[in-house]
């Protein structure tokens, strides 16, 4: 077939597809649980939060309309807003890539069916289930505190001159939280694992027969087949990175002097500790806008690097 002829054929197919491909009843039927829930449980609170962002609302009395004042103050006279953004960006752009890299690397180690792998998988996933409990906070303090285990080991190796608290020191505090995030790579690892398992072994087998080595197999089979999963993990990790809250809330409370002030923690402080709920809502919508931009960028870029079995051509 010549190129022109095949093009025509595609166009003809497209025309005849047209509206008849639309299956509105089925579509809406399937998504109805989400749609109903969305309208009842989400849209109302979101719109209320939007409304609050234009008010001065101290939670204990009614909101007072003040228009764009919250947003104005945020961008012109709020230092802590800028600090929080800075801390959060730093966190997102270090913790996320590290976490994903480890997750993928370890997932690939575990996709093989060697002995003991189920045990290994469990062990490496364990950190993630310890979550945001009080226990984690105490534990992290006991590891990285001034009298913690790390200092104990370092000083017995003769490497420590002065006792510093890794958690409390302004230069290292954020890194202990980044470490905590990276340590809990179990969730993206699990998702990568599930994705890797879906790649048919037959692909690898035929590639081996054709003479492709490990590296080639990785770049030509694994990465493309895994790309929808990488895409998913990337989007989700970016979102959860920007919304990081618990680690700072329970371990450092944003300190020392705001060195670990995650944006979501700042928002929480404004709303629930300073009773500036209107301002907190404004902060939330600004965060949403920022995350929206990043997410949209990743989505747009996905057309170039995400390969989908189910997409035509």
């Amino acid at each position, binding site marked *: 077939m010549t190129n022109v002829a095949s093009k025509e054929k595609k166009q003809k197919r497209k025309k005849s597809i047209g509206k008849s*491909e*639309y*299956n509105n009843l*089925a*579509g809406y*039927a*399937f*998504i109805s649980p*989400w*749609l*109903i*829930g*969305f309208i*009842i*449980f*989400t849209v*109302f*609170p*979101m719109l*209320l*939060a939007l409304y*609050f962002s234009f008010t001065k609302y101290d939670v204990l009395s009614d909101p007072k309309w003040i228009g764009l004042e919250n947003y104005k103050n945020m961008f012109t006279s709020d230092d802590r807003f800028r600090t929080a953004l800075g801390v959060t960006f730093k966190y997102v752009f270090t913790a996320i890539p590290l976490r994903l890299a480890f997750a993928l690397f370890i997932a690939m180690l575990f996709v093989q069916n060697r002995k*003991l792998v*189920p045990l290994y998988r*469990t*062990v490496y996933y*364990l*950190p993630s*289930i*310890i*979550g*945001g*409990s*009080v*226990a984690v906070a*105490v534990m992290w303090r*006991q590891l990285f505190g001034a009298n913690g*285990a790390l200092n104990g080991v370092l000083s017995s190796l003769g490497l420590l001159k002065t006792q510093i608290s890794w958690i409390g020191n302004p230069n290292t505090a954020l890194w202990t939280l980044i470490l905590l995030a990276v340590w809990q790579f179990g969730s993206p690892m699990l*998702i990568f694992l*599930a994705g890797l*398992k*879906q*790649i*048919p072994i*037959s692909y690898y087998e035929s590639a081996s027969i054709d003479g492709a080595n490990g590296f080639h197999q990785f770049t030509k089979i694994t990465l493309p*087949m895994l790309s*929808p*999963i990488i895409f*998913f993990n990337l989007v*989700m990790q970016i979102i959860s990175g920007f919304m990081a*809250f618990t680690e700072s809330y329970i371990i450092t409370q944003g300190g020392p002097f705001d060195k670990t002030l995650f944006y*979501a923690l700042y*928002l929480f402080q404004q*709303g629930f500790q300073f009773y500036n709920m209107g301002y*907190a*809502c404004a902060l*939330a919508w600004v*965060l949403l806008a920022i995350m929206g931009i990043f997410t949209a960028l990743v989505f747009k870029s996905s057309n170039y690097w995400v390969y989908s*079995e*189910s997409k035509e051509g």
Partner: protein
Amino acid sequence: MKSIKQKRILGTILYHGFIWIFGFFMIYPILWLIASSFKDEAEIFQKSYSLIPSSLHFENYIQGWKGFGDITFATFFKNSFVIVILSTIGQVASSALVAYGFARVKFAGQKLLFACMIVTMLLPSQVLMIPQYILFSKLGWINSFKPLVVPSYFGYPFFIFLIMQFMDGIPRELDEAARIDGCNQWGIFARIMLPLIVPALITSSIFSFYWKWQDFFGPLLYIKKPNLYPVSLALKLFSDPAAVTDWGAMFAMSTLSLVPVFLIFIFFQKYIVEGISTTGLKA
């Protein structure tokens, strides 16, 4: 021939060796937690780095289990199980349905609604807390499990999105083949798609279980009566910055609260593995 075998043995040693060493660092904090749960209170903070308690203080577990004011951890664990199991089933089932709709069915307004769904994930929950509380208060659902469980049956964007990605990995030819055989959309979903995305469903279940299990703010706001508290909330009751905190008991119960999630993971992880057997369909 010998050098290949040697290479393989070396490879195995390196493989396992690396995993063990790295694994030790991974698991050290958890071993610390478990060890502390058996330690005497003074020892927890004095000799914190040591993983071996000087003697096994089982009374931490007994004292912790007693709970507060006649309510033991048996009740707290029961509450947690009810909330988490109900909501996990809801989240995974409804999310799979919705994911199929978005991923496989063409309908008007699809792109817009999908964007809406993504946007809902972008709003920090702290800001939704008060409006949602007001909503549930109007519905009269306060002091029950309802605000924690009912919304689960309406899809959860994270899982919807996750399952969609897995569905993208399933070739459409299978759908077509089924359609030719006479299946309608529901049939394709139930008979073809679901079995193929088992790893995604299992993964979602594990996440859903674990996240709901340790959710603290939700129960804090919506559950008033202590006899309805889940474990996540009950654990906090041990510690007060201004008064005596029974750390031993708290660590003991924290360790115990890890057990169900741990077991769920161990039990279900093999189904993620077994997912490969179904992709052999291609042949």
